């Protein structure tokens, strides 16, 4: 497997990028300001693009260069720009409706990372690849997944929920590049495309929410129960 037999420089580069992305997820988790979220998300996407380039170079997968360019353009520039426009339209710049304060959510996030590591380590041992970059990738992938769910659960602004979903997808994207760099190009392209469609949809929905429900907080959306 690709991620097991790596030159030491490559292995440390991959680890560095993966861990930096995870840290940025924590930045998002610990911040109240929506613009900080967006910035952290954009930087995370750029790091993932760098990771694609590095994997493409060391693993000889030239199509990953294309993916890197697309990631940087779509996730690093276009998506944050679209979201920024929504933030400006809605005239909210900070999270007002959190169920859990940022500091507590950081602690919960750390616990989730430990859980992800335990799972990934278990898988690594059963495959006989304990301690390799693959285990780290799996840990980061699962952690970002869990942190994304945490953000969905404790944050109330619609923008935070959209960003939570995007962190979920970034986690999958990051992990899949290290674990399965040879996954057919088509799938990755379509995932990128799909993400764009999601955000377009969300943009429209947010507008609907403002027009017809008069709120930008998902907390007010709880009339349908039972």
């Amino acid at each position, binding site marked *: 497997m690709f991620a097991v037999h790596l030159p030491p420089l490559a292995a440390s580069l991959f680890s560095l990028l993966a861990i930096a992305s995870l840290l940025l997820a924590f930045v998002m988790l610990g911040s109240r300001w929506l613009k900080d979220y967006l910035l952290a998300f954009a930087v995370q996407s750029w790091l993932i693009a760098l990771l694609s380039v590095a994997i493409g170079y060391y693993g000889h997968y030239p199509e990953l260069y294309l993916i890197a360019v697309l990631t940087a353009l779509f996730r690093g520039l276009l998506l944050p720009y679209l979201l920024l426009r929504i933030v400006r339209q809605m005239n909210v710049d900070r999270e007002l409706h959190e169920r859990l304060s940022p500091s507590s959510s950081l602690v919960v996030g750390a616990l989730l990372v430990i859980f992800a590591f335990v799972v990934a380590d278990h898988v690594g041992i059963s*495959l006989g690849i304990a301690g390799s970059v693959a285990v780290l990738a799996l840990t980061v992938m699962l952690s970002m997944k869990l942190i994304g769910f945490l953000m969905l659960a404790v944050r109330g602004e619609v923008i935070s929920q959209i960003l939570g979903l995007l962190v979920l997808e970034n986690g999958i994207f990051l*992990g899949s590049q290290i674990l399965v760099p040879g996954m057919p190009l088509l799938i990755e392209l379509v995932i990128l495309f799909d993400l764009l469609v*999601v955000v377009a949809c*969300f943009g429209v929905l947010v507008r609907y929410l403002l027009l017809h429900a008069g709120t930008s907080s998902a907390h007010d959306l709880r009339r349908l129960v039972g």
Partner: protein
Amino acid sequence: MDANDRIVGGLLGVILLAPLAAVLGCLLARRPRPAEYLNLTAAVSVLAAVLLLLPRALVRTLTFWHGYLIVDALGAWVLLSVASVYLLSSIYAIGYMRRLDEAGRLHRFYALFAGFALTTLCGPLMNNIGVYWIAIELTTLVSTFLVCFELRRDSVEAAWKYIVVVSAGISLALLGIILFYWAGSLRMGPTYDLTWAALRTVAPQLNPTVALAAFLLVLIGFGTKVGLAPMHTWLPDAHSEGPAPVSAMLSGALLNTAMIGIVRFLQVADRGRLGALPRLVVVSIGAFSLFIAALFIVRQRGIKRLMAYSSVEHMGIMTLGFGFGGPLGIAGALYHMLGHSLNKSLMFFGAGNTMQAFHTKRISRIHRVLRSLPASGLLWLAGAVAITGAPPFSLFLSELTIMRAGLAGVNAWAVFVMLPLLVVIFVGFLDHFRAMYFGGHTAAPAGAQTGGSAGAARAPVRESVWCVLPMWLALVPLLVLGLWWPQAISHYFSVVAAQLSGKAVP
């Protein structure tokens, strides 16, 4: 490629291109009437093509378009349920949507409706697992806009919950798919096409830990879309807030398309060395869905939410059938799928008619349905009896078959959970109908004061043919299939069961 293959290819073209043409036509026409009939024409041709496809899909499994499209017996059966619901709800939509007073946007509704049908029809035909995931995600995106088509506060709320919960859930399925690909790449090399067949072939050599984690993720992910408890939270909102034809499509067509993913992954899990755990989890989730549905059905106050929880119930029963497995379990579950699709469409149509006649969706404000809606009220009542699994309708037969399959297997405990819950649901569901049809003498004067608009509508409402005809079209096959289980269908199911268990096709 022989003649049969070419015919199947042609039928496939009709199934996919007819709704596509309807989408484009509706957008170009920009007027309500042509859009209605374009969508209806597409629905008729899709159902005709699927009916012609069924016997041919039985002969052997075919792939098209460099292996991206697959036509197999299981997929064709799901297509049949989807196409039936698409036709029924297209007929019904004509009558229902004309009363909504949205003529200016109606062409957009039909474009979205046909697009939703297209994505739902694509799902069972996808051979590449990644592309299947994308098809499922697209169904969510398109149907979100249908759910909030009426632009009321509640429907926008429902649409928002729908897209957030389902997108988050379905991303777990993507994680599972990637883990499957990773586990497979340890055997098959770094680059290969992740088709259902490839995954089945490599399944016995997969690392059991990774495969089990991947299977559970996929089950939760697609289970969210199927509406299995505890991931069902979006379902009652989305189903109750969309226009009635959309609710019928969501319940009767969309859920089945996601169910096929679970069935196919279950087949992969069977080939791997995963032991009894996958089936145990599937059966437990099915039984838990029944439990949750029973709780919420008994104390439900909204008509369409009642129908939505009934969908959770029936998806649970189907999951039990597939989880029990064996030829009997699969036959029962597939029979249940078609029966549920027809029956739930009937129920949502009846609910739509009642809501339009009484101008409320609360059960407590609806009285004496038969007085206002003589024809569709009667059909709705018959449908209510049918959907609770009473004889002589087809859901009775399929539930019985699933229970027989369960008793023969290792998870027989689930049958003893299922049976009392079914009784509870039967009583709870029909009690709501008793209240709506025969109760409520005291409320009649209150309705008279407000001119009959808010409460009981006294005089019979004019029932449009478009709204009653699809109810007949759903009820008659339900009754026929309940009285007589055709031999041809039994043979069909035995082929599906053989394909799923990996034996040679008889």
